[in-house]
């Protein structure tokens, strides 16, 4: 810890039947928690905040949060459904935290106004949550969580349910606010873009366990779970203790069985075909399920419509092979 006023986060907890996670994060660090629905991401956040009972330890700086009630943890939460108080104005929502912690009303309001200005929604201070758009409400929720000056900030799917354009704008803004925030940020997301653009490190959770930890670049280049591979648009095949990863652009699609090692040749049936940049991205069933990018011309020539039986192959040189168990070089 460089700043004694701010605290690193050490988590080693289990919510029985849901999730078991150990993680550490430095002050100021943004850690993205990524994984499929039901992997236990939101449960992890709720357990750190103290909203669901958990076994193990959660330490924030010198404090053992596990022994503290929720309200003494100083952990700011931006809930997935925001949970803005519908009967309070945006300003009162943001002032709620400071006021609950004993800040006099006038000062709490002044602070809240400052936060709303910082989030660019100062002119909406008097609106009720139902009079706000999704993006505006999300900004209020972020301001509300930050206004209590939490030691850690937990964001649960902050862009879920927003229009693509609104989400993109908010993502850029959030990058700025998180850079200015000196506590630990945990950002739960199912979107690779969030993890790649906002996070210093990525924690991949799958089936209630940590599947991978690394920088966004490492995780994107050498994903360890099928889910992340799909998110970043890669094929990953498990081969014993090693993973074999290749891009959909390296896959050759043919109608007859191609030459080559059986290890790199798979039969399958086209499940879907959709434009992806300049190419057409095919999802092909089989064991494993793979994605392949082909040119529109090839798609027409080969008649690559859903239902079509095809062979997929990839050159060994295009395959990145790495261990499935140990962490990649850090």
């Amino acid at each position, binding site marked *: 810890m460089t700043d004694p006023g701010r605290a690193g986060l050490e988590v080693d907890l289990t919510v029985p039947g849901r999730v078991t996670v150990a993680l550490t994060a430095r002050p100021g660090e943004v850690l993205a928690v990524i994984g499929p629905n039901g992997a236990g991401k939101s449960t992890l956040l709720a357990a750190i*905040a103290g*909203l669901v009972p958990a076994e193990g330890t959660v330490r924030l700086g010198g404090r053992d949060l596990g022994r503290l*009630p*929720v*309200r*003494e*943890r*100083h*952990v*700011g*939460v931006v*809930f997935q*459904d925001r*949970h*803005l*108080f*519908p*009967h309070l104005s945006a300003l009162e929502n943001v002032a*709620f*935290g400071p006021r*609950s*912690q004993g800040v006099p009303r006038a000062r709490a309001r002044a602070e809240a106004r400052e936060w709303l200005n910082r989030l660019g929604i100062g002119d909406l201070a008097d609106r009720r949550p139902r009079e706000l758009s999704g993006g505006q409400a999300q900004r209020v929720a972020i301001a*509300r*969580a930050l206004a*209590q000056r939490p030691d850690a900030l937990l964001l649960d799917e902050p862009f879920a349910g927003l229009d693509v354009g609104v989400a993109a704008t908010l993502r850029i803004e959030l990058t700025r606010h998180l850079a200015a925030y000196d506590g630990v940020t945990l950002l739960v997301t199912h979107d690779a873009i969030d993890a790649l653009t906002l996070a210093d490190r990525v924690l991949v959770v799958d089936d209630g366990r940590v599947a991978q930890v690394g920088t966004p670049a490492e995780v994107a280049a050498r994903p360890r779970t099928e889910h992340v591979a799909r998110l970043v648009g890669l094929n990953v095949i498990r081969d014993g203790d090693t993973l074999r990863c290749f891009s959909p652009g390296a896959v050759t699609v043919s109608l007859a069985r191609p030459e080559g090692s059986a290890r790199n040749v798979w039969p399958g049936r086209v499940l879907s075909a959709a434009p992806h940049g300049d190419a057409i991205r095919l999802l092909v069933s089989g064991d494993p399920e793979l994605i392949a990018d082909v040119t529109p011309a090839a798609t027409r020539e080969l008649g690559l419509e859903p239902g079509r039986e095809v062979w997929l192959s990839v050159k060994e040189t295009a395959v990145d092979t790495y261990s499935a168990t140990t962490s990649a070089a850090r």
Partner: protein
Amino acid sequence: MSRDPLGRAPALILVPAGLAVVVLLVPLVVMVGSTDLGGLVDQLRTETARNALWLSVSTSTAAMLVALVLGLPLAWVLARLEFRGRGLLRALVTVPMVLPPVVAGVALRTAMGRNGAIGEPLLEATGFAFPYTVWGVVLAHVFVAMPFVVISIEGALRSAGSQYDAAATTLGASRWTTFRRVTVPLALPGIAAGMVLGWARSLGEFGATITFAGNYPGRTQTMPTLIYVTRQADTDAALALSMVMLLVSVAVLFVLRERWLGVGTT
């Protein structure tokens, strides 16, 4: 009337629905039609009627406030706390709701009467006894009305959702602050509805009141007991007094509906 895309409503539903309306409205309409409006004013001029009306309104309001002050916390306990026997507690609390009011009156007498298990020590210690006092009327009203208040407020607290409570807690709010600034404001329409329900139940209360508190004009004689007593001698007067009750009930419901329940505005 525009056509319902789901098809015509079946007669098997419409006919009983119509009968339900008839059963509910015809007696009231006939009563209104048979009332001599001049007699209504005359009745209101009598001291007995004015006393009874004032007693009914004031004791019902007092009972509603007591039921709120005690019932809101109980509703919160039932809605927000997890503990063994919660279901049993809820069931016990609702017993007075289904109990015949006369039985409620007998139970109150047995416990709080001058010779009651609690009433007797209370009388010896303070010289005060509930029966045949206005406080007895209020107690009887609270006993029969509070379950309605508790159950409807509990429903309101549940549907207001505990996720806002969770959000408030993460912002550092104590449970009391959360209750005061989040839980109660969010459940306000439901709380108001519960209060109206409790008030209406008190206003019409007859059995428990007459059994426990008696029927002393000016002291424990409420409108329902007055109507009952009057009807034996003078049907027209009873009709006029009933009209007064009907008007008061409807007026209060109407005002509160507009103001608190948000019904009719949406």
